[in-house]
């Protein structure tokens, strides 16, 4: 059986999640490998969410937030940008493939882009193969 990646998407309520909605209502096709969790702001994302997701078997984690400057709470994503950059470095230094973690800024009107990013990221994870490093063996 071919490998179907399991991807956790964490999307900000105001932009990326709405963008995902738009992608849905405009009937854009994108892979079903992503499971989206909605948070109020990308700065609400605790880095432990990401580590935990990998431990619980996610093959990739995609984080979506408003474009810098467009945050519903003015500055949330600016903090998130710094924090998630560190998360990425930590994952990388621990030995995790850097390609498994990605942060994208997708606005509410960018349904197309959401679909495109998911498509692209899914392909990328598919190429990387199953994530085994963090995953807790059952």
């Amino acid at each position, binding site marked *: 059986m071919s490998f179907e990646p399991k991807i956790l998407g964490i999307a900000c309520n105001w932009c990326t999640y709405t963008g995902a909605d738009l992608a849905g209502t405009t009937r854009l096709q994108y892979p079903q490998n992503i499971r989206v969790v909605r948070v109020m702001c990308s700065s609400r994302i605790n880095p432990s969410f990401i580590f935990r997701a990998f431990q619980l078997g996610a093959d990739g984690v995609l984080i979506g937030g408003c474009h810098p400057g467009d945050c519903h709470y003015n500055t949330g994503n600016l903090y998130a940008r710094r924090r998630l950059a560190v*998360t990425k470095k930590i994952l990388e230094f621990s030995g995790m493939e850097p390609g498994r973690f990605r942060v994208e800024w997708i606005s509410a009107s960018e349904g197309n882009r959401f679909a495109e990013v998911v498509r692209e990221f899914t392909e990328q994870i598919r190429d990387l193969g199953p994530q085994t490093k963090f995953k807790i063996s059952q």
Partner: protein
Amino acid sequence: MAISFEQIEQHLKTEALKLLESGKVILVLAYGRGYDANHPMPYVAKHPSDVDNIVFNEYCTANLARYLTRYPRRTKIAIAVKAADSRAVVQLIQEDKVCREDLVVLGIPVYGMKNFKTGEVIDSKTTGGLYNPVLYDILLGEEVHGQPVSSPYDVLAAYEAMDKEERWAFWQRELGRCIRCYACRKACPMCYCDPCFIDQNKPKWGEKSPESPGNLMYHLTRFHHLAGRCIDCGECSRACPVDIPLYLFHKKVAKDCEEMFGQAAGMSIGDKPVLVNFRVDDSDKILE
């Protein structure tokens, strides 16, 4: 010029005595004699007569900034700090855990400190490349100059050169040995959360038993919590009973933070910790 530990000890005693006698501070955080001369321990002098018990030698590596958060605010404290320790004090001031006004910082310019467990000189590993405290009210002795100034990140080279599989294997092996005594977080001056995320039971982030998944979760999150805050004193690695080189990961994160945000932890009390700060023009490149 060789460092004279006796001289520093003498200075320390004199200043501590002055401060305690004048009532400027009610306690002095310094070093006292442990069970033998090679094992000094942190010591709290509260009375002028306690000052005689203060010692200072090459084994006084403990970072006393760790104890600052234990005392209530507005406790007037004098604290003896070496270079890295002074950065911890600065960082704590930045984070508003202690007040600058409550502190009298006794700076100790020193090199050649040794790990009391192994006898190894720790300068190159964990002093952040500094020999002189970055913040002090009273300097005990003269500033150190002429020592080889090495980048604190030099020791990382070998690890950065590893490919990701090797690195993964390395950290799996090292973190796998962790017995979860939590000495690293307890020795760390910047770890003051109560309760620590790993002790929470809802949500439960990691298991209590010392097995790989829980260990990985605990350490990675701790590295993350200390990103941009770790002041590179190396206490976590020295405290570790099974010698896990935690300082390497902390250094790596510190290096990345410095590269990305252009600011090292605990260098100036006017700074804001990098992760509770942002610049509108931070580049999106850092996410790539």
